[in-house]
Structure formats: structure tokens, C-alpha cells
């Protein structure tokens, strides 16, 4: 792993993937809805924008102002776009997860067939 390579956290990874999921151009509430529908994860707008600001500072995403609509009370959207650096970071992060999880056999789960994760927790 090179020194310049950005390390991203789980939440950052989810947000980057959510933006990429919608043709790499998405805005706040849309990202939040994507995360809810795909990951069943409810994300508050405050936490989302704080993380997006941080990622913008790291150069992982860029933003541009979009169109306004009456549904939004006449306020413009702010679209976020994952940069090449962000795409590389998320790709490396996913590759690392894949490499780590490849040979994992979950011994507790296979020993207790019929048990769900919820039962164990």
C-alpha cells in the first residue's frame, strides 16, 4: 500500500459506494435513501454532510451545485462526485475486505447450524 493511498472507514466506504451506485453523481437525500434501501441503514443528513465535507477535504469527492425545484422549496441540490482517488480508495478497501474474508469459515456459525446471527447476539 503506497504512502499516498487514502485509508477510508466503513461509513465513508458506504457513502462512496452509494454515490457510485447512482452513476457517480448524487446529492444528500438521495445518498441517504440509497443507503436505506440497499443497506437498511438510516443515516442522518448532519452525519452524512459532515462525512462528505471530510471526504471533500481528503480529495475523495468533489461537489457541484445543481438545479432547484419546488419540492425542495426552491433550493438547489449539491451533487457529489467520487474522484479517481476516491474510486481507487474504495476499490482497494473492497479488495482488502475480499482478501481477508476469502478463507474465513465462521466456525461458530457452522457448528450451530440453524442458529441465526440474531440468536447468537
Amino acid at each position, binding site marked *: 500500500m503506497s504512502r499516498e493511498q487514502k485509508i477510508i472507514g466503513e461509513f*465513508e466506504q458506504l457513502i462512496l459506494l452509494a454515490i457510485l451506485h447512482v452513476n457517480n453523481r448524487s446529492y444528500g437525500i438521495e445518498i441517504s435513501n440509497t443507503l436505506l434501501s440497499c443497506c437498511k441503514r438510516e443515516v442522518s443528513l448532519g452525519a452524512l454532510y*459532515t462525512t462528505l465535507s*471530510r471526504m471533500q477535504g481528503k480529495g475523495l469527492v468533489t461537489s457541484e*451545485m445543481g*438545479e432547484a425545484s*419546488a419540492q425542495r422549496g426552491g*433550493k438547489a441540490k449539491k451533487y457529489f462526485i467520487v474522484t479517481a482517488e476516491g474510486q481507487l480508495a474504495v476499490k482497494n478497501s473492497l479488495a482488502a475486505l475480499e482478501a481477508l474474508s476469502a478463507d474465513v469459515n465462521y466456525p461458530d456459525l457452522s457448528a450451530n447450524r440453524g442458529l441465526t446471527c440474531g440468536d447468537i447476539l
Partner: protein
Amino acid sequence: MTVEPNKEALSTSRSNLPSSANAILRWSLPESLQEPLIGDCEEGFYNKRAQSKQKALFWLYKQIISILWNFGLTTQRGSIMFFMSMCGVIAIMLMALVLGGDYGMYVNIPSVIIVLIPSILAGAVYAEKGTFLSHFSLLINNNALKTLQQRQRYAKMFEIIGQTAMIMAWFGVVAGLVAISGNTTKDTFADVILPAFSVCILTLLYGLMLKALCHFAKIRILSGEGGVSSDNAATSINQKVLERGEA
């Protein structure tokens, strides 16, 4: 491709949000994020309201709490600190009064009138027409004043109120002492002098209280010097979250 915000749509479209929610969001968000983030709240609220109004309100206030936590603590740090320091000062004043004995002895309406009314009038005379109350609203809004000159001009009103309070307080003390001296006889001296003196210096107490409060208000308004404008606040949020992320 950057699309310029549609100014016409902005001016003609009505906000879907309750006015209280709109005010809190504008107060807590840095200027650069107001339009997109309030727009997102509007869109989310609009969509959820079609299902259930109660659920939409619950969702909206959850978003507001999150925005206050993530942004308000930075953009309105001065206001929050001012509010806390005022609470502290008032609590200490009340504690001193209550521990001093029966707090009824600290209450004297004529003394309040002598100090308060001339001070407020002096402040109103200094303030430009129609701006007297806006001086007070500045205490809870960090973003309104942009330049050092503006801050100094608005802070000056609190300085004048505080100074007038002290002048009137000393006037009350001197007037009280004159009244005591003129009305006390040799026979009543021992019984009257101390209770009368206690009432006489109450104006000084009220003057000091008002001066202390005005002092904090002045500090609050001047505290933005060096420009804690909303965009600087946004930059400082970015720096903070970067540091947090790197840690």
C-alpha cells in the same frame, strides 16, 4: 457541469418546512451548506409528509438534532458559550443573594426603575432607528456581523447601557444618602441608619448586575473579531472533521 441556483425558483417557491425548523437550520448551518442541506430536508420532509405528517415531523426533528450536533456546536459556538456564561453569571448572582439571607431584602422596585429605565433609554438613543432590538438578537446569531467596525458599533450600545447603569446606580446611592442624612434624627439614628443604608445601596447592586450582563454581551459581540464568519466556520468544520478522521 455546474448549474447556477435558480434564483427565481428560490424566491417564488414556498418552504415546506415549519418556520421554527427553518429558523433553527439557518441558525446552525454554515452559509455554504444552507441551501443544499435545507433543500434536502425540504425534499425528505415533502416525500415523507405524503405518507404521514407525524412521521415526517419526527424525521425532520431527528435531522435537526443531528445537524445541531454536527454543525451548530461549531458555527454557533460563541452563542452557546455566551448562553452558558450568562446562565453561570446569573446563577452566581442569585446564589450570592440567597446565601446572604432573606432575598426579599434585595428587592426594591424604585431602585430597579432608577437603574433600568435610564439605561435602556440611553441604549435606545445610541442605537440607530429601528435597530435597538436587533442588537439583542445578535447575541444569538454569530453570522450577522461581518466586519470589525460593525461589531464595535453594536458592542458600543451595551457599553453605553452598562455605563449608564453605573452612573444611575451612584446617583441612587448619593440621593439615598442625602435622604437618610436629611431625615435621620438623633433619636432614630440607631434604628434607622442601617436598614436605610441597605436600601440606599441597592441601586448600586442593580447597576453592577446590569453592568456585568452588558459586559458579557459586549464580549459576545466582539468575540467574532478576526471573522468567525459562516464560511470560516465551514472551513473550521472541515479541518475538525479531517483531524477527527485522521485520528
